């Protein structure tokens, strides 16, 4: 058994960690937090693109590095640790994966190279209303070659050049009525409206479509199946980001508890706090192990992926949400000030656990996939 990353992958991790430690410090994160007009850190984005991170799992023939999904997991964990304010997840875990897995040869050639180079940004949107997305509440429509409708929230929508959406391709309004379409956002008829998010370093907007051009992605009527698969793949990558963020939340809680004195001793020597941090550690280790299993399923195209991805996602959301909120608690009063960094993790943890579907939705996915697996 070899349930670990390889030495090369660990080397990649160390390099990524060192790079982000230098180039993505908290000051960089806060430039995006504090400026409403700034949707991502452009300098950081072009640097990580130049290093090829954006093309990690994109084949060389389409301008990528041609490495595997495990390497992308490694990068994801580091992006999560550093709270990198970039559209990486939207453009790479979602848009690029959709094109890579379901695009025609021509679409791969047209879209992937500029995504791999970071020159263009893509994203994906499913939701149109509050609550859990389901086929019946997709109202956006494709007819006579044009899209009309609305999506919200669209992560990184304001930075994005391309968008993949689900839209009805007939009038029946069921699961098989939905197809996926690639939309060039730089055209007339696309109107974007900024939305403030709980983590402004990961922005979103709403987008209205009026008679816009679009091309179909993959088979007609297969939007929901394709989306489920890509969200499973993305869930593994998100879980690595979450594990990364959770680990730093614990590290910072620990550091503070050893520097801060009360009642004549380090607050980290009080059992009430030690036990809280032990609980963070347990949740993080469970999440890390579940994420590893997800990584294995993802990298081997195993039919375990739906269960493995949901397990990784549920466990990682639990770990990061817990670590981020208890990090504030351990910091006491300063923990809820703007100046201290605790809220950056608190914001990011909740945003990540909602972004590709809530924890409760993923728990439901997990159990229904376990039921399916048992029947098979």
């Amino acid at each position, binding site marked *: *058994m*070899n*349930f*670990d*990353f390889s030495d090369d992958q660990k080397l990649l991790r160390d390099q990524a960690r060192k790079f982000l430690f230098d180039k993505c410090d908290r000051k960089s994160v806060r430039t995006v937090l504090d400026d409403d007009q700034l949707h991502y850190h452009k300098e950081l984005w072009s640097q990580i693109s130049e290093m090829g991170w954006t093309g990690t799992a994109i084949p060389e023939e389409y301008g990528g590095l041609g490495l595997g999904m*495990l390497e992308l997991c490694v990068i994801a964990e580091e992006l999560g640790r550093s709270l990198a304010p970039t559209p990486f997840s939207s453009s790479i875990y979602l848009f690029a994966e959709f094109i890579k897995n379901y695009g025609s040869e021509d679409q791969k050639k047209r879209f992937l190279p500029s995504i791999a180079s970071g020159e263009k940004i893509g994203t994906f949107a499913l939701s149109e209303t509050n609550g859990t997305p389901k086929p019946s509440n997709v109202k956006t429509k494709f007819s006579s070659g044009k899209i009309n409708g609305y999506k919200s929230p669209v992560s990184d929508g304001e930075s994005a050049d391309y968008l993949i959406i689900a839209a009805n391709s007939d009038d029946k309004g069921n699961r098989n009525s939905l197809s996926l379409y690639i939309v060039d956002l730089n055209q007339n008829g696309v109107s974007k409206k900024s939305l403030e998010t709980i983590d402004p370093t990961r922005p979103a907007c709403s987008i209205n479509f009026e008679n816009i051009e679009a091309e179909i992605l993959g088979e007609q009527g297969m939007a929901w199946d394709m989306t489920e698969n890509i969200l499973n793949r993305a869930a593994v990558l998100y879980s690595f980001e979450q594990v990364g963020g959770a680990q730093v939340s*614990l590290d910072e809680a*620990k550091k503070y*508890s*050893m520097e801060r004195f009360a009642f004549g*001793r*380090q607050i*980290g*020597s009080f*059992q009430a706090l*030690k*036990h809280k*941090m*032990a*609980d963070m*550690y*347990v949740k993080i*280790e*469970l*999440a*890390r*192990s*579940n994420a*590893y*299993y997800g*990584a*294995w399923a993802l*990298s*081997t195209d195993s039919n375990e992926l739906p269960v493995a991805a*949901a*397990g990784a996602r*549920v*466990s990682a959301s*639990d770990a990061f949400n817990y670590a981020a909120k208890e990090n504030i608690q351990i910091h006491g009063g300063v923990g809820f000030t703007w100046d201290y960094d605790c809220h950056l993790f608190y914001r990011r943890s909740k945003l990540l656990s909602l972004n590709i579907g809530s924890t*409760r939705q*993923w*728990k*439901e996915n*997990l*159990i*229904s996939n*376990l*039921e399916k697996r048992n029947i098979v």
Partner: protein
Amino acid sequence: MDFNDSQQEAAFRKEARDFLEANAEKRSIISDKPNDKSPQIAVAGAPETVKGGKEAAQEALERAKVWQKKKAEAGFAAILWPKEFGGYGGSPIQQVIYSQEEHDYLVPSGYFEIGIGMLGPTMMVWGKDEDKKRYLPKMITGEEIWCQLFSEPSAGSDLAGIKMKAEKDGDEWVLNGQKVWTSGAHFADYGMIVARSDPSALKHKGLTYFYLDMKTPGIEVRPIKQISGTSNFNEVFFNDVRIPDSQRLGGEGEGWKVALTTLMNERLAVGDPPGLDFDQIFEATKELEVEDGLAIKNSEVRQKMADWYVQSRGLQYTKFRSITALSKGQTPGPELSISKLVTASKMQDVSAYALELMDSSGMVHHDQNPVLKNLFQNGYFFSAAMRIAGGTDEVLRNIIAERVLGLPQDERADKKVPFNELPSGKN
């Protein structure tokens, strides 16, 4: 990343599987056989409850000894022990592989783990050559069973607070006092004991370690009745028990050091936690009905099931990470410290929730219980013990905080004061 065995590992696994297939019966998730007790609920030294009184217990013990002898002859009883003492001379990864395979079979457990896992290794480090030759091989074959006499009424989590008196008299020692929570003392042939030889020394300095024959005059074993109604543990009383100085392990006053050798092996010995887990409640939810139909179709149930699933599999995959470290010859990471902490509470939560799902029939706890054979009723009681035995939840969290995370130790009142001047709450 892969789950494949190396060639040697695969060969060893086959050897283990062949042995088990030829000699043991496979276990099921929830068995429908009336007398089948799977999934087994047992901890090291505390064999699964045997109903039917002393005779049945004696029979179960004999069965266990027969099994152990077979296992020893095949070489699997003490995989980590050196060959000279009858062990397999194997590696930690081989131990893990064997345990994984054995986990799928219904085999007796709870009798020999403490000896082979903890006390044998202590004797290897601290015992004289003739002791090792005399005692170790019979420990493996199950011919002689050993128990660990450490905890006392006033020394539980604070184990070094031992009060058992050891007074020297010529080349003999005289033991007086009481031990408690001694698993298996009622069937053990030998025991290892820590006692206080110098009450005026500092707490950790005044202890001495011995082994002894459990039939030595002056030893009285009384079972403790637990909340489950069964007795897996004992109180052991020592009344002028005389043992020769030759049965001392380590120097006078070095008892704590020797005890640490034993304890370091504890978490390895406890091994695979008993099986009342996600898989069992998942099966149960497919049978039990709640207000809107089968429990598994209820969304509250599903949400809870997902939490237990990720805990359960998270532990399993954490173990895979440890196995990977072992197979590369590295020290395993966090697995040993988090496993029991997570497992015990999970079992308690799963059991309590399963009773909820049974509604009022969850109250029923007797042999004829038609619903899932008392599995969750037993788990409800057993899990309360599991959160305490072998390190309480709180001690385990301290261990994680201090040894894994490197947080500061607690301030302690007992470090610089002679043992007999420490406040004990009774004087």
